């Protein structure tokens, strides 16, 4: 039983502003991740690693194939699901941590981290307390919690983003360079949390360029070069 399975996934971008230029990026993407496992996506830049994560999250539309995410005993095909169903899967089963925080003006770091829990129906006090614990774990100084993160450093923003993405404990988790701008201490925090999530049964797909971190979290590597359409 897989928590996440991709079969026959293909993606082509059509650039209408360049005279309808077609850019095939991926074809015949096949891999699956079992609960408690972490798959590391490998391959040089530009092969389509991030595109695969965006396809799974429903951020990019899938041209062909199936992307099955298991949620509470049934599978949802992200490639065919209507918007409401994708939103529901994201809220309840699918987490995605990118390198960049999309900061919302005026919203404090603490509220940004707590928000996914609140959306899931957790009481605000409880969500805030858990968000605070997560920020503490990522060594984000308490004086920053009440500030909107737009002016934070890259590393601070990434930790806010990680705290937000990891807090809801989704059964399927997508990580795109989660440790890119972190120091050794905070990289270790990420490794610890990912291992905890795996023990709790989460299925994880990660893009990590840092070999040490990838070896510490990934159970197997999926070489994306095999799915890339040669340019």
């Amino acid at each position, binding site marked *: 039983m897989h928590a996440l399975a991709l079969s026959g996934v293909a993606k082509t*971008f*059509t*650039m*209408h*502003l360049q005279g309808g230029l077609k850019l095939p990026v991926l074809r015949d993407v096949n891999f699956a991740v079992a609960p408690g496992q972490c798959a590391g996506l490998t391959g040089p830049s530009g092969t389509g690693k991030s595109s695969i994560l*965006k396809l799974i999250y*429903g*951020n*990019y*539309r899938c041209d062909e194939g199936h992307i099955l995410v298991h949620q509470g005993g049934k599978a949802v095909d992200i490639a065919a699901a209507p*918007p*409401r*169903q*994708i*939103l*529901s899967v994201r*809220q*309840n089963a699918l987490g995605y941590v990118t390198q960049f925080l999309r900061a*919302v*003006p*005026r*919203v404090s770091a603490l509220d940004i981290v707590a928000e996914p829990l609140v*959306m899931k129906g957790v009481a605000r006090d409880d969500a805030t307390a858990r968000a605070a614990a997560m920020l503490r774990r990522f060594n984000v100084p308490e004086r920053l919690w009440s500030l909107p993160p737009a002016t934070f450093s890259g590393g601070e923003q990434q930790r806010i983003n990680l705290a937000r993405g990891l807090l809801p404990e989704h059964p399927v988790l997508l990580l795109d360079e989660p440790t890119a701008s972190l120091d050794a201490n905070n990289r270790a925090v990420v490794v610890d949390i990912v291992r905890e999530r795996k023990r709790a049964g989460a299925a994880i797909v990660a893009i990590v360029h840092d070999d040490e971190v990838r070896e510490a979290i990934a159970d197997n590597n999926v070489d994306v070069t095999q799915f890339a359409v040669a340019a």
Partner: protein
Amino acid sequence: MSSIETEQPLLVAEGLSKFYGHRLGCADVSFELYEGEVMAVVGESGSGKSTLLQVLSGQMEPSAGRILYRMRDGANADLWSLSEPMRRFLFRTDWGYVHQDPQHGLRMGVSAGGNVGERLMAVGWRNYADIRDTAADWLARVEIPEARIDDTPRTYSGGMRQRLQIARNLVTAPRLIFMDEPTGGLDVSVQARLLDLLRRIVSEMRIAAVVVTHDLAVARLLSNRIMVMKSGAVIESGLTDQVLDDPHEPYTQLLVSSILPA
């Protein structure tokens, strides 16, 4: 969200078209909107997005098509089959409409408290103290100082007027709200405050909303879903991040690539 398969839409648009004589306003627009969903309608001036909003919100009768609304008792009503008083009652209680220009959505000569309280009186509130308390509570929620409750909106800044208009609309806990360029005429810093407020209140109250905007950043921040309009027709729709990150139609690609980076 557990009942996603069984949940019924709140608002259904079926083949809505509007002609001004021979000129097309909007053509054959269909969609379903569920409780708590925020849908943005984007497109340039003249794309038909404001016409669509006016038709959806019952201000203009469509030339073709129909609008179904699930009433509080669960029954689906065809908007234009309802009696005029019923329709007006619906607009006063269950629906809200936020105009781009707050002067159109407020009574400029009436106090802020009165502007908010008026919607309550329209649904039968009679106790003055209750009305005033609730109005004060709503002014606080939209960050208007209580000391300004007896001032008229003429003395308010643009941002405050817009926040007051929002309070006036939301005080009756509507289930559906229409917004026409809600941040249109505001300074950037004032816009951010308003967007944050709207985002929070709409999600807390689980209100469904249709937001017309030409600003893709506003759409991204506020909406779950998006419809792109051009020449009166919907040319692309879907999840907001999906349409903005992976636009398929030539016009949508042009819109997305025309944003100036901050």
